[in-house]
């Protein structure tokens, strides 16, 4: 966590930049699915979140969503919990970055461990560090 990486970015086979907002479509689900499929094949993946997508990994989400009033006993993981699990399962192959400006602008700059804040003007380094890149949605 914290500011810049202070070191050169690792190479990645694929950068998945989640630009669009959660809760508007299936792009967050697609990002998780694609990352999982790539990682299962031994690929290295960078995830970058911009705009409202930076909220996916905010600490205040906790591990579980608020209770479902019609299924009180059931637990539903938050995106922060899912991100933590994915990072834990692939510590060497998955790196997750969040745009510092977007995070701060939305009061979401307290991220779970493993998420690295990066200034938006560093984004070009992330593009260069990946062989391929997808932008999912728009800010």
């Amino acid at each position, binding site marked *: 966590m914290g500011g810049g990486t202070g070191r050169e970015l690792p190479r990645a086979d694929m950068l998945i930049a989640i630009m669009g907002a959660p809760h508007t*479509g299936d792009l967050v689900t697609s990002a998780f699915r694609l990352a999982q*499929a*790539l990682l*299962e094949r031994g*690929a290295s993946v960078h995830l970058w979140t911009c705009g409202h997508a930076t909220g996916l990994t905010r600490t205040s989400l906790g591990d579980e969503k608020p209770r479902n009033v019609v299924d009180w006993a059931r637990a539903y993981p938050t995106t922060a919990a899912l991100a933590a699990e994915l990072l834990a399962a692939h510590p060497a192959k998955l790196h997750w970055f969040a745009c510092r400006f977007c995070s701060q602008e939305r009061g979401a700059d307290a991220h779970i461990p493993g998420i690295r804040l990066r200034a938006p003007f560093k984004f070009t380094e992330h593009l260069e560090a990946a062989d*391929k*890149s997808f932008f999912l949605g728009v800010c």
Partner: protein
Amino acid sequence: MAEYLLVESQGRYAGPGSRDFLGDAERLAASGHTVTVLLIENGVTDGVGTGAGTGAGTGSDAVERLLEAGVRVWADGFSLEQRALAALLRPGVRRVGMDEVAEQLLRPAVQGVWH
């Protein structure tokens, strides 16, 4: 010649963007590039139905033109299941899983574009 994986995630309900993007695929194919189009999320709506009642210039018409041009058109099975549209997939469009998408994307020659 380049090889492309073009991912259409929005579909005809999001406006004219999907039609334009599928037009990009058609142009690339006509220029001799190898193009695979993946329909995913709401984009799978372009890969279902007969095209009847859609009117001119809809996404489905664009898919028909892609198929006629020999472009490989895939539809994400997960997205089809979510939308109860798996049984309505139009002929010529092949259902795929994310594993196949990842493998295609990891081929060095393939460039990906997400819409």
